[in-house]
């Protein structure tokens, strides 16, 4: 068969590579020419009078066996990821030759680390580009750790996790925002840190804060929470807006009448305690008033009330923003930037803190030196020394990691001794301080010199959003599970604290049998069951209501309880009935087994060991 059309053979790889611009084929290039073309386009990209967009992505996929489909893919569309690298294949005539490259092209490019080496490249693949700084291999959060190259690497990973949990001054426009929950630090600052065991309150990563420093505003913060009340969404079925019978209004006969305004909304600045109403809604159909009560365990202030006036006629939606003051208390969590987290164990009075004889300084925070040997966060010590020197000289210290790896361009900074510690030590020395950041301190309690030199200096501390007030849980009695009659779980619902297997083991090991019995039985699902000792069944018991007989009154005593008559339904007798204390779940187990046609019988005996 002869085809009606002349044979059209599309020129393709390996001879010709297709060229695509923003996903459309615009032509082809002989594969022998393409490398030159790519190099030329890159030169045009960095050339100062821009002829082509400088964020053009030159995705050149070379010929390969089993690799990506070869071609030259050019992209110019907006909002692509780009990052700057230095183009070193071009002659550097004074300019830096910074080229913006994209994620697609970068995998086919040869980019080297600016550490002076070639990164193990063969001479057949010379690097055409160079990173701006070695730290670009780190993420944004990882870059926040000073001198992270001096830390043990897992600590840097911990810090990267923790940096996301810090409280911060996250927005300038908090007044105009309606975030669900927003943690806010009032005054971000860096306290002076001391390492050294001054009391036993800094064991196991606990830390002592200076009470006066806290009172002066250190680590003060707030939580902003917004409640949205939409009347159109209330009451299940969604009616057309404006037709709901509900409206914001205060009840006329309400004992809390004074707390809310006439429009059923709270006053700005008002304090609302747990379980107090913060909003009142009137239902005109039922002529009833519903109040919304504040959940939680802590009082809050009304920060802002925003009304949604989309439909002008009547107000259907409000946002109420609450503010919860969260100043540091015992149990709050703090961390330095080196994965060294800790919990505040004491707010120590200023006068009891150790002080420096020369400057009179007292630390804001004390941590235990045991936090260092095993974790090897040398950068935290460096940070302390550097910050001390920096604050004495009134300048910032550059703590970028891998600074020593940067290729020395003009060999200018070679005159220095090189070691970082030496640079920092000299800074301190110049101002009359100990070379290694040590100081002699005096006991605040006794006024005598502490027998060891103490490492003291400023370290940036972060306040983490895990606070005791969100976590503490207590219960004496409360709600129990319907099925098992055991306390329910969950802090929100006032449940119990789990007394688990390991806790059980420890009590057993101590021989504290009574306490164990108290925790697991008396305070849990203590139950007295009637058991038929004849058939051994727990489930066949039946109550028989006694006829009301006048109980003989004994003078001065409360009327005696009429004994309940219990019989066994299976044995048709009440002779063998015995009251046995057991966990209620045991009874539940018996019923579950019965449902599976398994009979559970008890053998009752008076002897202890029988």
């Amino acid at each position, binding site marked *: 068969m002869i085809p009606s059309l002349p044979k059209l053979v599309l020129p393709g790889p390996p001879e010709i590579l297709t060229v695509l611009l923003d996903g459309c084929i615009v032509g082809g290039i002989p594969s022998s020419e393409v490398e030159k073309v790519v190099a030329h386009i890159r030169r045009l990209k960095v050339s100062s009078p821009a002829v082509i967009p400088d964020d053009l992505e030159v995705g050149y996929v070379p010929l390969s066996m089993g690799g990506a489909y070869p071609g030259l893919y050019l992209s110019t569309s907006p909002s692509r990821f780009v990052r700057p690298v230095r183009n070193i294949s071009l002659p550097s005539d004074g300019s830096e030759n910074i080229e913006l490259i994209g994620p697609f092209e970068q995998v086919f490019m040869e980019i080297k680390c600016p550490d002076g080496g070639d990164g193990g490249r063969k001479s057949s693949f010379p690097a055409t580009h160079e990173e701006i700084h070695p730290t670009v291999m780190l993420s944004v959060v990882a870059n926040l750790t000073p001198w992270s190259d001096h830390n043990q690497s897992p600590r840097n990973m911990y810090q990267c996790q923790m940096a996301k949990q810090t409280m911060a001054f996250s927005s300038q426009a908090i007044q105009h925002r309606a975030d669900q929950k927003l943690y806010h630090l009032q005054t971000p600052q860096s306290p002076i840190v001391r390492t050294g065991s001054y009391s036993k309150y800094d064991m196991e990563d606990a830390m002592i804060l200076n009470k006066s420093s806290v009172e002066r505003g250190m680590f003060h913060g707030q939580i902003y929470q917004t409640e949205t009340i939409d009347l159109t969404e209330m009451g299940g079925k969604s009616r057309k807006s404006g037709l709901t019978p509900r409206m914001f209004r205060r009840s006329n006969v309400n004992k809390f009448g004074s707390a809310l305004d006439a429009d059923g909304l709270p006053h700005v600045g008002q304090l609302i305690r747990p379980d107090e109403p913060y909003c009142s809604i009137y239902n005109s159909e039922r002529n009833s008033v519903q109040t919304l009560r504040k959940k939680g365990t802590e009082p809050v202030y009304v920060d802002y009330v925003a009304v949604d006036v989309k439909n002008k006629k009547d107000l259907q939606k409000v946002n109420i923003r609450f503010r919860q003051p969260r100043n540091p208390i015992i149990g709050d969590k703090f961390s330095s930037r080196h994965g060294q987290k800790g919990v505040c164990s004491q707010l120590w009075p*200023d006068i009891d803190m150790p002080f420096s004889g020369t400057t009179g300084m007292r630390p804001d925070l004390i941590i235990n030196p045991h936090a260092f040997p095993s974790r090897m966060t040398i950068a935290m010590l460096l940070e302390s020394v550097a910050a001390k020197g920096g604050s004495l000289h009134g300048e910032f210290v550059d703590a970028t990691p891998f600074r020593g790896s940067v290729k020395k361009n003009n060999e200018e900074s070679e005159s220095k001794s090189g070691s970082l510690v030496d640079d920092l030590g000299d800074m301190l020395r110049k101002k009359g301080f100990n070379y290694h950041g040590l100081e*002699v301190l005096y006991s605040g309690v006794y006024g005598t010199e502490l027998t060891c030199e103490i490492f003291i200096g400023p370290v940036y501390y972060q306040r983490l959003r895990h606070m005791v007030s969100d976590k503490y849980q207590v219960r004496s009695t409360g709600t129990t599970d319907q099925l098992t009659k055991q306390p329910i779980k969950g802090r929100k619902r006032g449940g119990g604290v789990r007394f688990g297997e390991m806790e059980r083991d420890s009590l057993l090991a101590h021989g504290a049998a009574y306490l164990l019995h108290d925790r697991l039985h008396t305070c849990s699902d203590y139950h007295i069951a009637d058991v038929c000792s004849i058939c051994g069944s727990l489930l066949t018991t039946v109550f028989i209501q006694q006829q009301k007989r006048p109980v003989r009154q004994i003078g001065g005593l409360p009327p005696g309880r009429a004994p309940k008559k219990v019989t066994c339904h299976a044995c048709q007798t009440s002779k063998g009935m015995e009251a046995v204390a057991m966990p209620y779940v045991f009874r539940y187990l018996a019923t579950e087994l019965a449902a599976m046609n398994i009979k559970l019988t008890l053998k009752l005996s008076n002897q202890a060991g029988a």
Partner: protein
Amino acid sequence: MEPQSYARMPRVKIRELRDDYARFELRDTDASIANALRRVMIAEVPTIAIDLVEIEVNSSVLNDEFIAHRLGLIPLTSDRAMSMRFSRDCDACDGDGQCEFCSVEFHLMAVCRNDETQDVTSSDLISSDHTVVPVDFSDATIDASSDGISGNKKGGITIVKLRKGQEVKLRAIARKGIGKDHAKWSPAATVTFMYEPEIHINEDLMESLTLEEKKEWVESSPTPVFDIDPVTQQVMVVDAEAYTYDDEVIKKAEAMGKPGLVEINAKQDSFIFTVETTGAIKASQLLLNAIEILKQKLDAVRTSLDTVEADDQFGELGAHMRGG
């Protein structure tokens, strides 16, 4: 036999005295007294500070608690504080804390009507008592207009900054209190003391050093304690008090193979105090008040029933405490 008296007569020598700064020597007593004095100065000398704030209008960027906290930290002139009553044991107002004997009322009204940012400072606080006013830090000797750093010409501590249309209106009640309860009542910015060092240079051993070695040794102290006499080339002590007990020179001497080159001891009975106040009271007054309070506290111990009961335990000391 006359019971032996343990009483010592401490001496105070003032070296430098300014309104908010004092440096003095305290001799012939021991660390317990020196430290008690330091602790009392920081935490128990009363001052007056804003303690209760009623906010009427606040449309500023800072929330109510923040402003109240900032108001509390403003130092107020507290020369009256010693004679004032604590509001908790004030009879005139039943501990209500709002009468003239135990409180001072302040008013603050500020509205910004301009396009420029307006600073609300402590000088905008209107006091009901002319003796209790925010401390004025404006230094008459420095021309306010030339001082570019502080920025606000009025002087005073910035409470909040207002934009056009924002307003702050509040009533604040200042009360007497002590630094133990809250740091805002502490009159002291810094109180510190150091033991006076006693430095003995072993001259014979020192002479065995070359000039180079001497220089190296002198340089090893981070603070300028020693120097070399340019004429006799002898090492001498220029400023003993600059010594921070860092042991650097001793370590250096050991490293040079000359242990015992210098002997440094802290005198256990003389102290050099440095006192800096917040401006609430004068540094001299702070010291006098602290001594007064320390006396009151000792009196309380002496007259308390427990002390009499504890006589058996303390024995001689108990008699001493009661002035025996």
